[in-house]
């Protein structure tokens, strides 16, 4: 039977249409099937080995080993063994690779091949390959000139070389066993009486199921899922959550209560008079150490008549008025405090008067926005405009690019087809790089700030929208295009009158979708220096100032929610 010629045979009550087969196609299918099986077996081996190494008995050994790792098998042996097992498995019927490559075994046109013949085929494959591998391995260990990769690939090449020589794509083993392996287009045996067995009872189904189960088990182990830790370490997260739900928004304008006590360094004949407690007025007195002494002397102070349960600071004021912070202080429920400290090493010539100053901040004024809130609002505005600029620029640039990436417009002549493939590839690459990474690049290029963020988001927007728009162009109804072309319109007129009107609803939908994404992205692009609120957020988190960070987080959530809602309304009205 020559290639590409059909032959119809009638055998009993079955009609067999044998279409011409290309040996290259058969070889390609078989190679794909074999590679799939080999990959599946290697994967099974690797997963099982990983799981076995988790067992306590091997975990210690792994930790202790220095030279040869535990349970190590050289990869060449693994792959060679996998090839032999795959050939054996494939010969018995439908292996996983056989299922993927859609290979069927037939003999004289019938799909019913006896199990004995299949076992013969399988054993012949093993008998053919195993000695070859053993011989090659012996050669390799004795003469390193035989590289390990030849061990694996050479036997396969020889095997399939025969398949390319044979007109029907059969290997030597196939001919001896009298079996033909082929993709289903070659043979079509119509026999509806036989009901196929369920997939899990077949070897390829069982293998696929085993791979699935093993994958999830391996996944669980590799990602170190530990549900225990989730429950046990919950208290660690508690202070964080408390801070996160109490964002710093408003505060009352603090007014300060100040009281001072004089101190002379060093003592002269006329030390300053000690300060007194004045009723109703915040006062500070030195209770121990007198009103003069040397640097380093221990003095104790007491404050009275301050606001209760308030925080403040204690300063040492030198003779020229420079303040040096000693410590933070807090008043008790009566508005009093007592502290001890050493006289600091203050500047000043001898016998000059220094002062101890206590400043208690009392939140008593009118409510006003904290500095945090003002910074957040400022940056949020920058974030929103960042998203706006990036989306607009992205939309404008991506429209012409999307026409160049549309298959149904570009595939007609070789020049435009090349342009199509190049554009598609570039856009795919640009789209696979996350905006955060682009932002890193642009931060180096144009410096930290929102411009880098705009550039990064625009680039990614262009790549993503070009793909979405071009898919919309490819899915338009060809009818109106036919009709407009039939009136004698040229390409540009056809696009303007038949393509563009059909594109408007998906265009608007995708633009709004991208706008949503860009708003989210712009909030985090500041994490790498791209401007916007992310900039503040990452700094507050690094300084462990979680209350301020909470302000930023809540602001982001609010703005994103509002934008989502707004874009849903816009979409409803326009589309």
């Amino acid at each position, binding site marked *: 039977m020559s290639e590409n010629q059909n032959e119809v045979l009638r055998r009993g009550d079955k009609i067999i249409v044998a279409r011409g087969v290309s040996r290259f196609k058969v070889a390609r299918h078989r190679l794909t099937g074999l590679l799939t099986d080999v990959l599946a077996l290697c994967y099974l081996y690797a997963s099982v080995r990983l799981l076995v190494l988790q067992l306590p008995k091997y975990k210690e050994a792994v930790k202790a080993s220095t030279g040869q790792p535990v349970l190590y098998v050289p990869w060449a042996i693994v792959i060679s063994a996998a090839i032999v097992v795959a050939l054996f498995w494939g010969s018995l019927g439908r292996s996983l690779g056989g299922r993927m490559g859609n290979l069927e075994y037939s003999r004289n046109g019938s799909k019913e091949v006896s199990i004995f013949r299949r076992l013969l085929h399988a054993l012949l494959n093993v008998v053919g390959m195993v000695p070859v591998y053993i011989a090659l391995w012996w050669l390799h260990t004795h003469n390193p000139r035989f590289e390990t990769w030849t061990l694996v690939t050479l036997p396969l090449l020889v095997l399939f070389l025969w398949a390319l020589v044979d007109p029907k794509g059969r290997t030597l083993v196939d001919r001896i066993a009298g079996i033909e392996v082929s993709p289903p287009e070659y043979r079509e045996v119509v026999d509806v009486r036989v009901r196929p067995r369920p997939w899990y009872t077949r070897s390829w189904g069982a293998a696929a199921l085993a791979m699935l189960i093993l994958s999830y088990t391996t996944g669980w182990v590799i990602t170190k899922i530990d549900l225990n830790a989730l429950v046990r370490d919950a208290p660690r997260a508690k202070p964080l959550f408390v801070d996160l739900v109490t964002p710093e928004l408003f505060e009352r304008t603090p007014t300060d209560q100040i009281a001072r006590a004089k101190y002379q360094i060093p003592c002269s004949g006329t030390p300053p008079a000690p300060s007194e407690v004045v009723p109703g007025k915040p006062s500070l007195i030195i209770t121990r150490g007198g009103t003069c002494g040397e640097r380093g002397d221990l003095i104790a102070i007491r404050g009275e008549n301050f606001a209760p349960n308030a925080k403040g600071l204690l300063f040492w004021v030198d003779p020229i008025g420079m303040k040096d912070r000693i410590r933070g202080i807090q008043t008790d429920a009566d508005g009093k405090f007592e502290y001890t400290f050493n006289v600091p090493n203050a500047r000043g010539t001898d016998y000059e008067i220094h002062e101890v100053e206590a400043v208690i901040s009392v939140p008593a004024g009118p409510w006003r926005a904290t500095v945090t809130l003002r910074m957040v609002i400022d940056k949020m505005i920058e974030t929103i405009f960042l998203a706006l600029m990036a989306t607009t620029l992205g939309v404008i640039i991506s429209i012409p690019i999307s026409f160049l990436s549309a298959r149904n417009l570009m595939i007609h002549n070789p020049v435009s087809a090349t342009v199509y493939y190049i554009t598609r590839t570039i856009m795919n690459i640009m789209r696979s790089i996350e905006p955060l990474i682009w932002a890193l690049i642009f931060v180096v290029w144009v410096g930290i700030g929102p411009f880098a963020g705009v550039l990064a988001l625009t680039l990614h927007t262009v790549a993503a929208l070009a793909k979405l728009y071009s898919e919309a162009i490819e899915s338009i109804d060809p009818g109106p295009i036919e*009709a407009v072309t039939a*009136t004698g319109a040229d390409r540009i007129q056809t696009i303007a009158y038949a393509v563009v009107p059909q594109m408007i609803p998906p265009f608007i939908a995708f633009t709004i979708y991208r706008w949503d994404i860009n708003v989210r992205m712009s909030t985090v692009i500041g994490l790498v220096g791209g401007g916007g609120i992310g900039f503040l957020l990452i700094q507050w988190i690094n300084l462990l100032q979680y209350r301020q960070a909470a302000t930023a987080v809540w602001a982001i959530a609010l703005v994103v929610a509002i934008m989502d809602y707004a874009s849903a309304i816009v979409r409803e009205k326009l589309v």
Partner: protein
Amino acid sequence: MLEIQHLTKIYEDGTRALHDVSFTVRDGEFVILIGLSGSGKSTLLRCINRLVEPTSGKVIWNGVDITAASPKELREIRRNIGMIFQQFNLVKRSSVMTNVLSGRLGYVNTWASVLGQFSKEDRQRALASLARVGISEKAYNRADSLSGGQQQRVGIARALMQAPKLMLADEPVASLDPATSHSVLKYLEQLNKEDGITVLCSLHFLSLARRYGSRIIALKAGEVVFDGLPKDIDHQRFQEIYGEEAIEVEIA
């Protein structure tokens, strides 16, 4: 005069849509193509204005070889050939007026038309075409808000804008009810008799073909099996065209 010479079309997957089709159409004729679905009627019509490229053969119209025309020449040829379709092929979101005006695209400057600039004559012509098919009140409605029959009439108005000499109709009434079918075919008949436009129309129902056509060409599996007057199709011929189990159905 339209000459089809040995027209053949074989698609890439091996389907033979047309095989050595030859016939001649004189100006002013109303030729109706009949045949089973898949017999090649749509392909034949589309090969005439080269919406589908024929594999071999020639289409010569008024001495001009359409099959050998350059893209620029082809546009000028297409200007004079109007076409209406089974699925109407209107741009759904655009207004009826825009759809009708798009029939004039072969005659206007590219960039002017992209900006929507049509001359006053063109716009008046559009309104006149719509009036001729009887739906001038729907001129500014969205095209998809019209009924099937109305949409097909918009298609006819669009074709009229081209001032065509030849009209190709690919199963124009297959999606319409019987009464509307007659209405649409009456418009085509009017164009044929009053304006002298040659019409090449493919239909499913032989009764419609007998009523409106001056000549019937029947296709079967891509080949011409009958070419003659409607009254010459007797029962035997009918079975040759449509197959042994076909029964003639009257469309009221």
